[in-house]
């Protein structure tokens, strides 16, 4: 049985009751992760923006129609460098990134993800493969051989 005052209450009172029963605060671990996010900042890196994403509805690829989890294709670019990445879902929430850098050349690749950093090396043809990347926010840091400035991709939610 509902107290009559609850059903008859003013909008303000009802809002307050809702605030006590329905509203949520962000969990502490979410707040802590957000507070720690500033440490990821590197204003000296060149930011490669996401220029194509097969999961974007505006870029429906043929593979998307088939369903059944086709690999997601991501393309990033700065004025000078492009990075193409194919994301393959593993069985346990880990993904594998297979990618290609242009202009071609060897590079050190580090992938920041929720559980840490996964590293790999791009070969002289610019090809790389990174295993063990957890789903969640992910970015690639690419240090090209002979380049002064590292290239960071935008953070992307896998």
């Amino acid at each position, binding site marked *: *049985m*509902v*107290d*009559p005052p*609850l*059903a*008859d*209450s003013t*909008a303000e009172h*009802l*809002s*307050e*009751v*809702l*605030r*006590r*029963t*329905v*509203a*949520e*605060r*962000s*969990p502490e*671990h*979410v*707040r802590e*992760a*957000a*507070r720690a*996010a*500033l440490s*990821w*900042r590197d*204003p000296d890196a060149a*930011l490669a923006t996401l220029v194509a994403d097969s*999961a*974007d*509805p505006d870029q429906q690829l043929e593979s*998307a129609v088939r*369903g*059944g*989890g086709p690999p*997601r294709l991501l393309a990033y670019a700065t004025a000078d460098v492009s990075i193409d990445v194919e994301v393959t879902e593993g069985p346990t929430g880990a993904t594998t990134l297979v990618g290609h850098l242009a202009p071609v050349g060897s590079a050190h690749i580090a992938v920041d993800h*929720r559980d840490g950093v996964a590293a790999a090396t791009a070969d002289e043809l610019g090809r790389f493969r990174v295993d063990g990347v957890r*789903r*969640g*926010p992910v*970015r690639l840091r690419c240090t090209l051989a002979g380049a002064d400035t590292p290239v960071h991709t*935008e*953070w*992307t*939610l896998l």
Partner: protein
Amino acid sequence: MTNLDNRSLLAAAANGDQRSWEVLVDRYTNLVWAVARSFRLGPIDAADVSQATWLRLVEHLDDIREPDQLGSWLVTTARREALAVLRRAARAGTPTGEPWLLERPDPAAESPDEWAVRADDAATVRRAFLRLPVNCQRLLHVLLVEPAPTYAEVGAALGMPVGSIGPTRARCLSSLRRLLTAQGAHDG
């Protein structure tokens, strides 16, 4: 420092000032979280959307053009990320939605103050809330955030015109009151 405006805090954070960054996080973390949850994302997806939103702000600390509108910028970013999560899940055929309010611990029990709501009242209100149209649930959910968001932020979070927020809120509360009345009659 908690009184500083967004412009000062963004500038300081861009220079690496952790304390300023934390003030910004504390100012908006509940709002960003509520936006993610208003799409009925589960706690893991909502945490990812939240973190992706903050990481995006870290990337763009230098080029937030309207610091006064930072809240709107954040909820727009969170909304876009949340919709992308839903879209990818739909395509992959994996469920994301969950009965977001049902399995939570009873928050009424956590607020032993003058506003404390009796446990059975809390359950009743929650049940009625979940019978509201989804748009009402989302609007009320975002409006309930503390500190209270501006209507511009609410509009950005829900993709609705600012002018329709007040009337829609009133309509949703009326519906809730009707549901409570009907439930009361039924329960009684």
